[in-house]
């Protein structure tokens, strides 16, 4: 049995975009995702905090990382949705990383490959 190509997509973006992004991904058929709160730095400058007159530079800013794995849904549709929702045009909108995936396992059933990530109810 030849396995269809599986792709992992990491979207790192502004925390306030999470809900909108989740809805947009749902409309194109992406039903599962893993979300983590992360801190990062890049082109976006941090900010200054003041504690009793002592200034502290905060360089890492809070972001969310959304990890999704797709097989049937075209990667391009995911990228388009993410770009449309997350783009404000300002520095700090985030990054998207795309990786080919070797295998996937559904722990409950032991199924491997594309079948492990396809929603069985759809």
């Amino acid at each position, binding site marked *: 049995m030849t396995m269809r190509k599986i792709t992992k997509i990491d979207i790192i973006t502004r925390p306030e975009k999470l809900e909108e992004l989740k809805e947009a991904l749902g409309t194109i058929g992406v039903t599962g995702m893993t979300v983590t709160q992360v801190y990062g730095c890049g082109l976006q400058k941090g900010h200054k*905090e*003041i*504690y*009793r*007159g*002592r*200034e502290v530079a*905060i360089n890492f800013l809070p972001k969310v990382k959304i990890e999704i794995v797709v097989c049937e849904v075209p990667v391009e549709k995911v990228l388009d949705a993410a770009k449309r929702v997350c783009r404000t045009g300002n520095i700090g909108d985030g990054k998207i990383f795309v990786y080919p995936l070797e295998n996937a396992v559904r722990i409950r059933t032991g199924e491997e490959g594309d079948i492990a990530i396809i929603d069985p109810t759809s």
Partner: protein
Amino acid sequence: MKKYWTILGLCLLCMVIFVPVTLADETVPSAAATIAPKIDSGDTAFVLLSAALVMLMTPGLALFYGGMVRTKNALSTIMQSLFIVAVVSVQWVLWGYTLAFGPDIHHLIGSFDWLLLNGVGQTPNPDYAATIPHMAFMIFQAMFAVITPALITGSFAERMKFPAFIVFTLLWVTFVYDPVAHWVWGVGGWLRNLGLLDFAGGTVVHILSGVSGLVVALVIGKRKGHGSEAMLPHHLPMTVLGAGLLWFGWFGFNAGSALGANGLAASAFVVTNTAAAAAALSWVFAEWSLQGKPTVLGAASGSVAGLVAITPASGYIAAGPSIIIGFAAGIICYLAVSVLKGKLGYDDSLDAFGVHAIGGTWGAIATGLWASKAINPAGADGLFYGNPGQVVTQLIGIGASWAMAIVATFIIIKIVMLFMPVRASAEEEVLGLDISEHGERGYAYQDLMSGSPVFHEKLAVHHADVIATLKLNAEERGQ
């Protein structure tokens, strides 16, 4: 370590054994009581409630300080203040009160006549307060002895071992607080005889604690990573709650020091609130204009700075000067913690020195400037009321308090260092003192946890394993 605990335990046991012996001497209320001054119910109610208000300040201080440390040290910082309520309350009854307020010896210290409160009863002692039970005066003063060493903990926060902290506190209260309280407030005390005006403890409470805190901070050294890592307050709302409790309790501290429900108490209440408010304003505006933001920590710190500064003056000055004293205190203390501390580079973790020593010194000087007999006939006039000599007296009191705090605290902390580790090890500091010293964490959600309840009796062994594992994890994360 077990050895020290055994010795400490034996000492406490001996004290308890002697209790019945001393108490047996206490005379039953007799004919002497009939000629004693009459107790005023209003005064007594007021002073007892003021004592309760001052008691609440120390748990309030625990929150004030607890919010300013990092997550991993929240509980250990809170515990230091909380545990001092217990330690000093017992010390005060056993020997603290008699050393501070007992019959005078050479104007330097109280005698042991009132050991275990022997002779301190329900009738008034007119030397201190003629209209309230001597017991009420004693317990009111106990709360001052409690909060003073608790203020010091702000200087050595996040790095002091708990056993060493207990021994230091006991020695410090006995050899620094009790004698200086006697000098300033005890009948026959040399600073009291000299005419030093310190209504509620600018010298005794704030200069002693702030200066001693700096001495300990300098002797035990900076926190690991001080200057290179950002050490941010983990919960400023907790700090604001603590500042609120301090402000509230301070009405008992200052107005209660009138030792009666009278006009002087009302006057002290008003100037206390006014100075706290003025200092909160000036600290926030100073920070706002120099650094661009009106910070919440600045408002909380400013109010405390104002309360510190008004403490010695509260029973001697009018409302007008209280605005000046508070306003100046906010700016002076803000500059002390932002500019002075930065320039000199010492690690006074939570600014016990910058707020209490500096604010207390300013308040003690200001008392000599604005004190007026029109407010308190039992006091004296200050510089602006035609008595420049009062400023000199105040400066002598300030100098004596600073000198005593520096010399005695240095000796005490050095002696403690001879017998036990005072400073947490580098690993313990990285792990946080909550787990290393107390085996607890303040916040269960701070990271992923795994474990299972322990039902057998070898709990201590298990804890040691857990701590070893956590240390290992912390090291791995550090690499």
